[in-house]
């Protein structure tokens, strides 16, 4: 019985490197070799001189035996009868190994069985990649080892597909991230298994007919292997068994044993190595994707047409065309991530390598206050924003842009629920927000500025590093706010947007705390939350943020139960906000001096308008006194806004809606409020699909003049509308069914009419006209459109009272006609 010389499968290079952990791995393999050969020599081969060979496979085969790893042993048999006929000898042999303290995990196979693709047992196929002859019938083994490379070559695709499937399943089990607070050093993404995966894939890919080669591992992977191997050995030694979970307890115990001085620094080192391994594994998976599917290849080909003058797309990766341009124009980096966010294509590793040496320069550049927000907002508003933010994190650009976030890089905050480091938690939360399902997804789409929500998520836990220990559970909020505020000022975010972000960060725990500790059926509790939240838009953003934040704690926290609770809270607060819209008015005492305009407007007005806007409204009111009306039109970032102040008159809202429709404008949002003196303040935000106003500045004046004449009764709005082309009948396959609801409970003084209908030009005019012509007086209006759905809420009275049942019936009839024109 003798061990045969060099196997055709050389030891991986990172194993031959000198390192104590590695020597002990190989040392254990040698000792086990000796035990196996001895037991075989005693109990097997005297009576079975031929037809049976012992082959080490898997980790044992590649001489990587951790202190308590299983011993993967292949009993290679000439035929299927042998194991049956020789059961007593084989049992005695295995028992002897067990008695020597080895956990043997044996497989009994014929050479033919080793040369089959086992879809249900990929581990067997893969373990044979690391086979090493130990003892027994050498010619029998030679037959296998001769055929094996050919087998691998001709079944390469099937083997790789199975291996990829296993790997993806394993990654999914760990939510696809390596930033676990208590990682499994073998199985978690970025762990030892991934390192093997990378090697196996290269081995399979390069398989030629004569021999399998083991590729050289790059330096960072060799370092990672040494780190992880040492760690796994230490974990085994600590537990006294095959235990690979790097728990908080194990982290502390090993640090006490002298493995590390500072646990936090040690964990950061762990994540650094895991990141290198994870990156290699992901690259390997992508190469497989690119090679494996013809359809994918076509798609990739098609995607390369996305290339532009700054960036090119090759093999589903974005490359800089002229990386040196980063020197003179650092914003190029932001455009790269905008490209990533728009098209969902990651930066190439070349691009990452080209950015890396320039990070210091980028940091200096962004340290100066600059108008970076528009570029960042474009990134955050794209469909693939989460991928872009993740890529910015991976390449270090995120920290160059926001050094304040560096404190949470790989930061471990230990508590019972959190599974990820703080930076990973942040990235997962951003992903969660953008992929929120069902009703939460709808809320996200309704947000006027998704970018602000994502920015708030980016910073919501930025203060975690500094203050929780000192000031308790919610102490980090203040520190997060400060970090965000400094960043927002530096990138010149407008004041109003800064307010929104600060609001979201300050209150990011508010809804979860209400869910936990308040009676959601108690009007007082809901009123309190509504007071904090203020407006529907903020409520929507905060609800999506809460949904995303809770789910990013760990994948199982956002149970259907919790999701339903959060939705219940959202509904209750939403209803409270719309109720108070009609009922809670600005009192005399609260109104400012000289601003009689405000008295009697809904309280919400104060929350939805900045001081500057209020001052402008007051000035507009002064202007209106001369002619009884004043109209202001201005351009917003992506739309236009018309504000009108005048004395109230029946049908006014309809007239304005009609005027805008007559100019071909598409109304996106509208509000109509009236104050105690009977003045009306209507605001319309509208899109200009034909860019009439933008291209012909004189049209702005004409619109203003026309609006004034319509209000003063000098022009019939129907004349304007006559000239407009009739809207085309909707050709979409998906029709939005109209829904009309009357609610007498929602307000003490008015009937709420809620209309959801397929949006079309002129719809709002038709609806408002139908209400006015059925004798309704529109008190308050809130209009919203999402995609092609209009959601309009009117608070309507008739003769100063709520609508009677009969009135509701006749008005409902009229409205239905308008929503679904024959």
């Amino acid at each position, binding site marked *: 019985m003798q061990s045969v010389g060099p196997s055709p499968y050389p030891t991986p290079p990172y194993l031959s490197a000198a390192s104590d952990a590695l020597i002990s791995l190989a040392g254990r393999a040698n000792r086990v070799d000796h035990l196996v050969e001895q037991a075989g020599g005693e109990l097997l081969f005297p009576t079975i001189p031929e037809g049976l060979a012992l082959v080490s496979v898997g980790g044992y085969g590649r001489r990587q035996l951790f202190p308590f790893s299983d011993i993967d042993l292949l009993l290679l048999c000439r035929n299927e009868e042998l194991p049956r006929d020789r059961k007593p000898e084989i049992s005695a042999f295995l028992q002897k190994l067990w008695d020597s303290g080895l956990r043997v995990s044996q497989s009994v196979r014929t050479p033919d069985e080793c040369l089959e693709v086992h879809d249900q047992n990929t581990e067997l196929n893969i373990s044979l990649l690391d086979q090493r002859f130990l003892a027994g019938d050498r010619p029998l083994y030679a037959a296998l080892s001769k055929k094996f490379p050919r087998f691998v070559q001709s079944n390469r695709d099937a083997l790789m597909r199975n291996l990829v499937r296993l790997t993806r399943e394993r990654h999914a089990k760990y939510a696809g991230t390596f930033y676990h607070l208590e990682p499994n050093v073998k199985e978690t993404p970025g762990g030892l298994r991934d390192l093997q995966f990378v090697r196996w894939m290269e081995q399979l890919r390069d398989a030629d007919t004569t021999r399998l080669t083991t590729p050289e591992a790059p330096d960072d992977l060799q370092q990672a292997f040494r780190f992880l191997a040492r760690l796994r050995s230490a974990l085994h030694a600590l537990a006294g068994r095959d235990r690979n979970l790097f728990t908080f307890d194990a982290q502390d115990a090993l640090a006490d044993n002298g493995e590390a001085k500072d646990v936090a620094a040690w964990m950061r080192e762990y994540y650094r190595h895991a990141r290198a391994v994870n990156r290699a594994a992901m690259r390997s998976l992508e190469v497989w994707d690119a090679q494996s599917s013809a359809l994918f290849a076509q798609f990739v080909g098609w995607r390369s047409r996305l290339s532009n003058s700054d960036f090119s797309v090759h093999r589903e990766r974005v490359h800089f065309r002229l990386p040196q341009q980063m020197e003179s124009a650092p914003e190029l980096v932001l455009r790269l991530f905008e490209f990533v966010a728009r098209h969902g294509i990651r930066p190439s590793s070349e691009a990452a390598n080209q950015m890396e040496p320039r990070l210091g320069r980028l940091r200096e550049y962004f340290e100066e206050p600059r108008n970076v927000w528009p570029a960042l907002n474009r990134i955050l508003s794209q469909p693939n924003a989460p991928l872009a933010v993740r890529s910015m994190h991976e390449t270090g650009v995120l920290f160059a842009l926001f050094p304040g976030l560096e404190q949470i890089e790989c930061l471990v905050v230990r508590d019972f629920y959190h599974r990820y480091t703080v930076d990973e938690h942040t990235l997962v939360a951003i992903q969660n927000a953008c992929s929120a399902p069902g009703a939460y997804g709808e809320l996200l789409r309704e947000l006027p500025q998704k970018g602000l929500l994502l920015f708030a998520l980016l910073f919501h836990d930025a203060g975690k590093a500094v203050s929780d220990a000192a000031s308790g559970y919610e102490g980090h909020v203040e520190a997060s706010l400060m970090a965000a505020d400094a960043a927002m000022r530096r990138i010149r975010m407008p004041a109003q947007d800064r307010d929104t972000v600060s609001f979201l960060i300050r209150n990011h725990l508010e809804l979860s705390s209400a*869910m*936990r*500790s*308040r*009676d*959601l*059926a108690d009007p007082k509790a809901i009123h309190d939350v509504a007071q904090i939240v203020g407006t529907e838009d903020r409520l929507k953003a905060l609800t999506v943020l809460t949904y995303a934040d809770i789910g990013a704690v760990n994948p199982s926290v956002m*149970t259907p*139960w*919790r999701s*339903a*609770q959060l939705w*219940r809270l959202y*509904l209750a607060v*939403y209803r409270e906000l719309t109720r108070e819209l009609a009922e809670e008015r600005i009192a005399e005492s609260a109104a400012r001096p000289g601003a009689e305009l405000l008295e009697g407007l809904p309280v919400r007005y104060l929350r939805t308008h900045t001081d500057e806007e209020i001052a402008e409204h007051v000035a507009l009111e002064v202007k209106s006194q001369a002619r009884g009306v004043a109209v202001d039109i201005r351009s917003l970032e992506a739309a236009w806004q018309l504000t009108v102040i005048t004395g109230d008159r029946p049908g006014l809202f309809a007239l304005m809606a009609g005027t805008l429709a007559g100019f071909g404008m598409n109304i996106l949002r509208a509000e109509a409020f009236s104050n105690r003196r009977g003045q009306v303040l209507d605001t319309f935000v509208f899109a200009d699909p034909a860019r009439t106003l933008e291209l012909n500045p004189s049209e702005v004046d004409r619109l203003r003049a026309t609006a004034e004449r319509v209000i003063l009764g000098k022009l019939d709005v129907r004349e304007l509308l006559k000239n407009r082309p009739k809207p085309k009948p909707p050709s979409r396959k998906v029709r939005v069914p109209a*829904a*009309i*609801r009357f*609610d007498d409970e929602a307000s003490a003084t008015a009937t709420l009419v*809620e*209309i*959801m209908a397929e949006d079309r030009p002129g719809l709002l005019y038709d609806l408002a006209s139908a209400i006015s012509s059925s004798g309704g007086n529109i008190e308050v209006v809130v209009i919203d459109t999402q995609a092609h759905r209009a*959601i309009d809420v009117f608070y309507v009275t008739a003769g100063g009272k709520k609508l009677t049942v009969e009135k509701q019936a006749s008005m409902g009839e009229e409205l239905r006609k308008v929503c679904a024109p024959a």
Partner: protein
Amino acid sequence: MKKIEAIIQPFKLDEVKEALQAIGVEGMTISEVRGHGRQKGHKEVYRGQEYTVDLLPKVKVEVVVSDGRVDEVTKTIVEAARTGKIGDGKIFVLEVLEAIRIRNDDRGESVL
């Protein structure tokens, strides 16, 4: 031994937990459940879509105690969980035949 199953309002969980810990009940099992008693569900309308909420979210707290402690524990839960309104929940007391600690096969009340 008795098992006490309390179905309570979710927002009362912290108070109930604290009250139980204050009288020395350390072990408990908490689950998120949905259901309804006499407080039937109701209709909700959101943006014109009407839907029925018939199962309301509640929290179930389960503790097992010796017979002698049943009154004290149920009283504690009632006090901590009561708001006086419909929907406060219910408590059920069940007979427990045996308690076994899995780690070492200990049996009986000492396990609690």
